[in-house]
């Protein structure tokens, strides 16, 4: 399959697409082709790293050789900006920020797919479909914890951090919720779940935590030992990073675990509705197969090893609350007060 894929890294500032002022927001761009001659090219805007999503695309293109997929990667907040600016330019939008995706659907940007079978809890308006279940965990550097008890919950982590402030000062990592859509989603859900979150953030703030925009850098720094604990990082990202597999490990806090669904939607302004819909059907079908985890690093909705369905962040209009300007301002204020000291 790999040999069919034509990898094309295109310089982002090429003529022809330079007209799109916001294109510098794109981080990666890659073209996958089902065969030599393809008629239809689906433009996919995604927050998932290309190498993580590539296996999923490969399987789809094997069954649909007449299609090719232009895969564009941006951060979840940039996806929202790009897509709202020109919804006709993209056919499929995939993002880890459930709240932003739900708001896009609410605002009428998504195409409602008729007769699609998907569980109610994993879809909204037959327009937004969750296709992964990914828990946020605490990732740590294994070497560092050889002599220290590995915390299993947030309370334990607070205790461990307070007991060894000298060990952890400047060595903690979490998302900068002002920059990361996914970080903001996890932070707001944490704040909903428990007051422990605020105490934890205060501890993080006291220990001069480093703030990251993206999970990749966090994991890089974890592997190199620059930081030793990263809080609220998708374990699936860690799993996918085979290069650092030996040096890092993770736990899912046993007090509560936030589970996120990666969601996908078809643009209402797409001119390739048929192909985009076919991709969605494939994506949702695959998400319901427990065997899918053998083929792609993305954990499917149905899994034999873990059951996260009860702790998944619900796809309902409540997600839009934290996107409200006043609410966001209030939350960011509280977060800044706790973390930045």
């Amino acid at each position, binding site marked *: 399959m790999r040999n069919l894929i034509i990898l094309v890294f295109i310089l982002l500032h090429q003529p022809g697409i330079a007209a799109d002022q916001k294109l510098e927001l794109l981080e990666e761009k890659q073209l996958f082709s089902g065969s030599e001659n393809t008629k239809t090219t689906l433009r996919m805007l995604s927050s998932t790293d290309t190498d993580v999503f590539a296996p999923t695309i490969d399987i789809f293109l094997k069954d649909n050789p007449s299609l090719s997929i232009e895969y564009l990667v941006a951060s979840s907040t940039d996806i929202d900006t790009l897509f709202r600016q020109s919804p006709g330019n993209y056919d499929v939008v995939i993002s880890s920020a459930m709240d932003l995706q739900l708001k896009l659907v609410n605002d009428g940007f998504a195409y409602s797919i008729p007769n699609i079978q998907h569980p109610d809890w994993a879809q909204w308006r037959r327009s937004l479909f969750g296709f992964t279940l990914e828990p946020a965990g605490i990732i740590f550097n294994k070497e560092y914890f050889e002599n220290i008890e590995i915390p299993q919950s947030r309370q334990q982590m607070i205790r461990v951090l307070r007991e060894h402030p000298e060990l952890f000062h400047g060595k903690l990592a979490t998302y900068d919720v002002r920059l990361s859509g996914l970080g903001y989603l996890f932070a707001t859900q944490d704040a909903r779940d428990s007051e422990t979150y605020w105490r934890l953030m205060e501890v993080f703030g006291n220990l001069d935590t480093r703030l990251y925009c993206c999970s990749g850098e966090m994991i890089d720094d974890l592997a190199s030992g620059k930081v030793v604990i990263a809080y609220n990082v998708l374990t699936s990202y860690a799993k996918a990073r085979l290069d650092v597999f030996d040096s890092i490990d993770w736990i899912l806090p046993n007090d509560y675990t936030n589970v996120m669904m990666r969601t996908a939607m078809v643009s209402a302004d797409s001119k390739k509705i048929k192909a985009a819909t076919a991709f969605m059907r494939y994506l949702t079908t695959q998400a319901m197969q427990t065997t899918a985890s053998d083929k792609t690093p993305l954990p499917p909705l149905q899994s034999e090893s873990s059951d996260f369905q009860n702790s998944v962040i619900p796809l309902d*209009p409540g997600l*839009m*609350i934290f996107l*409200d*300007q*006043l*609410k966001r301002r209030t939350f960011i204020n509280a977060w800044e007060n706790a973390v930045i000291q």
Partner: protein
Amino acid sequence: MTDTSVTNISGSLRRRLAITLIVGICIFAVLLFFIIRLYAAQIAQQSQDSILSASVTSMLDAAKVRDGQVAMDIPYSSFSMLATPQDDRIFYAIYQDDQLLSGYESLTLPETYNNTGTVFRSIDFMDTPVRQVIASRTLSGLTTPAALIVTVAQTQDNLSVTLRDIAKNAAMIVLGFFLLAVVFSAWASSTTIAPLNRLTQSVTRRGPKDLRPVTRPVPAEMAPLVSSLNHLMQRLDDSLNQSEQFITEAAHRVRTPIATVRSHAEITLQRVDKEENRQALKAMIRATDETSRAAGQLLDHAMISLRASQLNSEPIDLSELIQELVRSLTPVADLKDIEIRLDAAPDVRIHGDSILVQNAVRNLIDNALKYSPTESTINIQVRANPKPSIVINDQGDGFFHDEKDKLTDRFSRGRNSTGTIGSGLGLTIANDVAKAHSGSLRITNNHNGGACVTLSF
């Protein structure tokens, strides 16, 4: 009993009643369906309104003035309470006086809204019908008091699905109700019609001479009809009685004077010698005979018509009846030297009116006697098979072929009857009697001359 008179039928009471009921129920059912739907729509809208209202209230409650600025820590439930099975979209806007603080800029307030109270309205937002609620609260703690206005709008997908479900259920209920009502109306109409059917049966079952009034109780609505019917039957009974009386009376009153005239004429004939006068008297006697016979036959015919319409059914032994007749007619036959031979099978029985049968056979034998030459033989056979029948053969001239069908008409006489006394009613009477008993009269000629008349039952 000979025929059922054709009844002119227009419509059916039962059908009319059933149709009226069903049409009424139909209108009622359709009305009921729309009332249920209207009512359901109101209730469904009310419940959506109350949730919208709760959402807005919780948002208003979350507003605080902090450092001269409005801060709103909107609870998660403000929006999650609006989640519906159909995943309805929600839109909101928060205004401080006329200035948008947060939310959808295009979700405007109604121009008439005066910043007090809670207002609901249905509008189109983003090309979708939505239900909008607007509520407000006065903010204190700012330099000047300001109104905080929150509006939330929700699409109506769930509402329409609910309404569709309700409409479907209502339709099923109404349909079930309608079917029950149809069965009921069929039952009701047949129950209502039942007394009429019972009356019809009791009248139909009656014997021909039973003209008693109907006495069994009937519903009030049928009383005038039954009363008229009773009245009619009474009049019919009276009229029939009168006719019978009249005929009997007439027979007596007519025959006696004619007989007197005849005997006077005969006596006078004995006394008159002048050939001219004798001829006149003979003509007179002939005319008298003819009159007597005609009168007799006319009265017989009238009697037969009367009795045939209400036929008496009693067992008759045909053989015995014929034997008696032959005995009584033998003297008349002897006058013309005619021999009557009777060949009667024993025990030929029919059901009928013996007076009528006797009359018919007498007329037939009379005819045979009249048209037979002197010194001839009349053969009478009574058969049981294939049908009970009486066959009379004479040795007269027989019938003209072309006349046979007409001879049974009233007052119709054959061409060879010239010179013979007759009224033309004899065969008519026999034919009428045969028909009254569901039998037939067959007129043929024997191949060796003479007429053959067969009366079968």
